[in-house]
């Protein structure tokens, strides 16, 4: 086993464990912390794939902005009082977990067998396409229209968030 593989397995194991902890912790704030951890591990996995820009954007946007928003909301609503949300293991949950396990096995079998050959090596171009320069070039030429539309989406989200979260007076 090469060092790459060992690193990958360590990262994969930590990301899976932290993801499981996210959905099993009772207190949402602990879930937020584990999710941030999971996102940072994913950013490191992106770095091993030479996607530097995506890795750093992952940390800035997900860990630095979105999850701070989650943390903020959890702290604001003060959901620390556990009795407000007692969750029981019902039959529904057992079915859900069973279905999810079946689904993941199906997906894994699917990707390993039916789609035929997958490349086993990083593309030689991988180190180039992950850089900021290349991403910028592609984003502002080939994907310019989607980029502009994304800005409209963000504007709509800003307005929506303000309207929804505003306290109605009177």
């Amino acid at each position, binding site marked *: 086993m090469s060092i790459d593989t060992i690193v990958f397995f360590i990262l994969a194991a930590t990301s899976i464990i932290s993801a499981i902890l996210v959905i099993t912790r009772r*207190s949402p*704030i*602990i879930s937020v*912390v584990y999710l*941030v951890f999971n996102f940072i591990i994913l950013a490191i996995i992106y770095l091993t794939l030479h996607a*530097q*820009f995506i890795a*750093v*954007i992952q*940390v*800035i946007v997900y*860990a*630095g*902005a979105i999850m*701070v928003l989650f*943390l*903020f909301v959890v*702290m*604001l609503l003060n959901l620390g009082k556990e009795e407000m949300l007692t969750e029981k293991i019902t039959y529904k949950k057992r079915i859900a977990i069973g279905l999810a396990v079946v689904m993941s096995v199906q997906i894994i079998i699917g990707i390993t067998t039916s789609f035929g050959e997958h490349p086993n090596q990083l593309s030689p171009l991988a180190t180039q396409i992950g*850089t*900021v320069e290349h991403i910028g070039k592609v984003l502002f030429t080939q994907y310019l229209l989607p980029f502009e539309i994304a800005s409209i989406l963000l504007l709509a989200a800003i307005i929506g968030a303000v309207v929804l979260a505003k306290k109605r007076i009177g």
Partner: protein
Amino acid sequence: MEILISLIKILVVMLVLLTCVAYLVLVERRVSAFIQNRIGPNRVGYKGLLQPVADVLKLFIKEDIVPKLANKPLHRLAPIIAIVVSLSTIAVVPFGDKINLFGYEIKLQIASVNIGILYVLALTGLGVYGIAIAGWASNNKYSLLGGLRSCAQIISYELSMGISIIGVILVTSTLQLDKIVEFQHGWRWLILLQPIGFITFFVAIFAETNRLPFDLPEAEPELVGGYHTEYTGLKFGLFFLAEYANMITGSAIVVTLYLGGWQFPYLQSSGLPEFWTSIIQVGTFAAKVGAVLLFMVIIRWTVPRFRYDQLMDLGWKFMLPLSIANVIVTAFIIYLFE
């Protein structure tokens, strides 16, 4: 060999940074004493020079108290996040050009990464967690309020910080901090090309480091001690260390982006031996960072604190539009001149 050199660089930088933090605290206390017409700590060692040692020793032997209703793992985790984030920012800051030592050419920067500034932005984004989690985990309303305030403040000012950085990137067309410094040779300092960007960035750095006039997360009269009310001993020491380390890295980044980094005008053409050129460059960098730090300290003891709504107004209604305008104007000028 490469790895060994990197390890030595990391070790040296960390040692220097931590010593600077210790003495920055002393400088801060002496300057505040001077401003308030007091004497300040002058008993430990010659003129108080060993005061930091005494402070650290005191923090070490203090009892570590965790509140009974605190969330213990998170209470323990928060100072660790704060310190890790504040110490790792320094990794991309170039503190000199190259130096020839024992036959090896050593680049005076721990890591020159392709994503340079974005790395700094990512880490400042993560810095929120230490404070916010500390506030929540202490289970104290003052701590929680301090944590929430700091969250809101850092997020708000991160925007104007990021957008003023865009101006720098537009002018230098690179994200790597060492290349940005190389761009500023001679007198082409970016403070002259980007004066408005400099102001918004510097104000944002004040807000990010929770310094007065933006120290609302720990405003003593209202919030006791803010997010670190419930911290004692070493954990409090870690927060303290993180705050001052943030100050140093923040001013190092201001110097790198806007004040020419290690550039000393006309030094390269003066014909000094290469070794001494490198030494002078490192010295220049240190002097610039020291000047910015002194400025921050003086501001802290001479300017009153903002009210919370004034802080938010300043961030969203003034700094953000100003930095956006700066980007637009910069883009137009570059477009016209090319």
